[in-house]
Each structure stands twice: as C-alpha cells, then as structure tokens.
C-alpha cells in the first residue's frame, strides 16, 4: 500500500514507514466523505 504524502514547506514526499506509523497512532484513517 502506498503511504500518504507529507509536506514540509514546498517539499512533498511519501511518508516514511516511521512517519506513517506515527500518523496512524494519532487515530488518522483514510476516511469517507460526508461532504
């Protein structure tokens, strides 16, 4: 599975595995749209 991107100022790159695990630890989900 492709990890989401992270942006720091003008740099956009794919998250590292470590960063992705940290994001998931916050409760982040891919989510659904309710508008």
């Amino acid at each position: 599975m492709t990890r989401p991107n992270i942006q720091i100022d003008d740099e956009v790159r794919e998250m590292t595995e470590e960063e992705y695990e940290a994001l998931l630890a916050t409760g982040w989900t891919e989510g659904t749209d309710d508008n």
Partner: protein
Amino acid sequence: MAVKTFGTEVLTSADTNTYLANSGLVYVKSQTVGTTVSSVTVSSAFSTDYDNYRIIYTGGISSATAQLSMTLGSTASNYYNSIIYCLYSTGAVLGIGNNNAASWTYIGYGSTATVMVSCDLFQPFLTKNTLMSSPHVQFAGGVGGTNQGILIDTTSYTSFTLTPTSGTLTGGTITVYGYRKA
C-alpha cells in the same frame, strides 16, 4: 499613526507608504498545499516581528470528511482546547473538550467540497504559553461553532503543522498574517 482623511486629492507616495506600513494585518508568508498530503508544515511563520498571528487556509479540498488539527514545532503534548458548537437545524448547543492532548483539535474542517481554517495564534514566538482561537464551520453533521485553546509550555515556535483526522489535503493556500504591533 494619526488618522488622516482624504478628499479628492491624489495620494502621495509618502501617504501610501505610511498606510501600507500601518495596516492592521501584515502579510507574512503563504504556502501552496500540494497533492494528497496528510500533513502540511509551514516553517518560518513566526518571528520577533509580530506577537500575534492570523492563519487562513482556503481553496483546497480533502479526500474525506475531516477535522483539521494543529501542532506547533515538534510539540506533541500539553494542548488544551474546547469547542462549543451549535446544530444548524435545531440550535442545540453542545461541546467537546480536549485535555492535555497531542494537538489542538477542530482547528478547521475539510471535505471533498471545501476546506477552511481561520485561526488566531497569540504569542507563539514568545517564551510564554501560546493561545489559540478559531471559528469552526462545517457542513457534515450540520454544526458550526467556536474553538479556544492554550498550549502549556514556554517554547518559542517558528512553525506549525496542519493535519486532517482522515484522508489527505489537496490544493489551496495557507496564508500567515501578523498583527501589527504599533
């Protein structure tokens, strides 16, 4: 600055420069948001130039319905905030507390239709507690409200990060303004 009232005369460059230099909110920087990013960090946003700031993020979308959270620098604790919100349909008032958390929650809202952050930060660069105030407007759930918070530490911050609770952000611009000191 003394208030000067103009009639029909042409403004001089000196008058124009004086008014530009004495505006209430002064542009600091802007950051275009990339494609499908799960967080955006804006560096060099705060400095000794201003004590208090307004941060606006509009023009983008989110891949999912999401609340946006904010962190300052690399700090991941000691964030406190409360959201008082009201149902559009009934006017019923509700609240959410966020006690010693890893971020300020409900700083903004995103969906596939829109994204919006309008946040005032007070003294993030000073070695004092940083305070936050932001309106919260969303369509999902049919609610809107207001959000107030404090970060209990005395770190001097220069950067902030916005993170959606779900999905990713695409596009739009984050703009930082400073409140003119004098």
